[in-house]
């Protein structure tokens, strides 16, 4: 028996997805980006509507120059972990800058956002503690809960009342209770009711960790996320996030006002046992952070673009989530149809993400579409037109739109 035979079912699913000559959606190659919004795919210029590059900063001139300069002065890697030889002055500088941006006392920087969740969640919630996770949490949150030793309880997605009920069941049990929510959920783009969760947290004397991966740089007057937008930053004990979305680089962080954060450096395995971020990435991240702070108009344009895309896709008769946010997912019914729709979009020059169950809420396949501040209105209209064309080809127009 092959060591791979347990994946026979997976192999069959993949074969079904590529059956009638379709592409492997998990192996798309962007030959190279031509700008933040256009990439060369299969030799063709393709509109990118499936990245997390919300502010377009992966192509920031300032960040590129900073990376080059840092590579010249510092070299290209650290060859060590944060607690051994992998902390340079730049790492400390980045932590100070991120802490200052969030107006928090402490910051820990990790090598990826995935590791930030893994490292914080597994270290904060110990054996006698409880972790309360939103049912639709990102894989890094679930994996963090498995790396640690706390008892893990799921509550219904974005449902503070359901959390309250589950916390009530824990009344009188010793052990800390750590609630974990996300700012914007990456599959549907729906936003957490942070103020309501903050109220439940206060009532129960629990702790609150918010993963603002998709909302950092996107929500709040200064881009500090949904907690800022809802005016409840004081109730969020730990903010976790990533540099790999709005800042366009790579790396993760946690900010907090709790002095205990420094102890986590000595017990968080995903922080301790991996190499630290390379200098050029740190320099680029700091330059991107500056740009994000200096150019609030990027966030305004992003939200205008989100509304344009959301309205356009709905007018084209497609079903999306209710909220206009930088992630707008088109919800389809059948996996097979979603795969063909996705292939056709790429044929016609639009790249989006194909998301399949069980990685999606409610077992529906999704065409996950995301906008950037750097998309022009014409690019968005073009993408919407192509969606409408394919929807017509597939007979998917909903009656209201078809007659319009």
């Amino acid at each position: 028996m092959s060591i791979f035979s347990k994946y026979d079912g997976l192999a069959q699913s993949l074969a079904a997805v590529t059956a009638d000559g379709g592409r492997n959606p998990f192996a798309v190659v962007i030959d190279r980006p031509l700008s933040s919004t256009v990439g060369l795919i299969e030799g063709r210029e393709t509109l990118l509507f499936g990245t997390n590059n919300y502010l377009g900063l992966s192509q920031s001139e300032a960040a590129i120059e900073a990376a080059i300069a840092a590579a010249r002065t510092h070299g290209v890697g650290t060859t060590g972990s944060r607690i051994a030889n992998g902390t340079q002055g730049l790492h400390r500088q980045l932590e100070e800058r991120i802490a200052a941006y969030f107006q928090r006392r402490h910051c820990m920087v990790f090598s990826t956002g995935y590791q930030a969740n893994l490292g914080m969640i597994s270290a904060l919630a110990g054996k006698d503690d409880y972790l309360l996770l939103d049912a639709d949490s990102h894989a890094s949150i679930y994996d963090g809960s498995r790396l640690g030793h706390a008892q893990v309880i799921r509550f219904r997605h974005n449902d503070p009342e359901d959390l309250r009920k589950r916390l009530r069941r824990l009344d009188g049990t010793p052990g800390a209770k750590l609630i974990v929510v996300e700012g914007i959920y990456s599959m549907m783009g729906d936003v957490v009711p942070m103020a309501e969760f903050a109220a439940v947290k206060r009532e129960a004397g629990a702790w609150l960790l918010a993963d603002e991966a998709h909302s950092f740089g996107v929500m709040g007057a200064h881009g500090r996320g949904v907690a800022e937008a809802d005016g409840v930053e004081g109730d969020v004990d730990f903010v976790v996030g990533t540099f790999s979305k709005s800042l366009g680089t790579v790396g993760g962080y946690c900010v907090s006002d709790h002095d205990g954060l420094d102890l986590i450096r000595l017990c968080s395995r995903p922080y301790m046992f991996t190499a630290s971020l390379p200098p050029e990435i740190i320099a680029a991240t700091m330059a991107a952070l500056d740009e994000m702070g200096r150019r609030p108009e990027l966030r305004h344009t992003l939200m205008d673009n989100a509304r344009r895309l959301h309205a356009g896709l709905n007018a084209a008769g497609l079903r999306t989530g209710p909220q206009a946010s930088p992630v707008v997912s088109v919800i389809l019914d059948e996996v097979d149809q979603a795969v063909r729709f996705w292939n056709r979009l790429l044929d016609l020059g639009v790249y989006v993400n194909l998301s399949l169950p069980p990685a999606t809420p409610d077992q529906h396949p999704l065409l996950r579409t995301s906008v950037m501040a750097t998309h022009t209105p014409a690019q968005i209209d073009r993408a919407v037109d192509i969606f409408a064309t394919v929807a017509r080809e597939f007979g998917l127009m909903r009656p209201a739109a078809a007659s319009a």
Partner: protein
Amino acid sequence: MSETVADVSALIVQTLLANPKVPRDINGSSKIVEDLAFDSLAVMNFVMEIEDSLDVSVPLDRLADIRTIDDLAACVVSLKQAT
């Protein structure tokens, strides 16, 4: 309130049968993953329903040891007795 394992097991079967995709011939010794063809997410979602009908929370790590409907019923009963 003191439900027995048999009571809880019957309630779980009843909850499962409300889902038309579940085979009709299940009983307490049916295996949740193999016999019901549930993936890990479906298991977690179905356990959530059971939690609500019985007002109990089943920590996710407990699920690792549960194979049959009766196992789940026994786990729920022991959790309820502990509170």
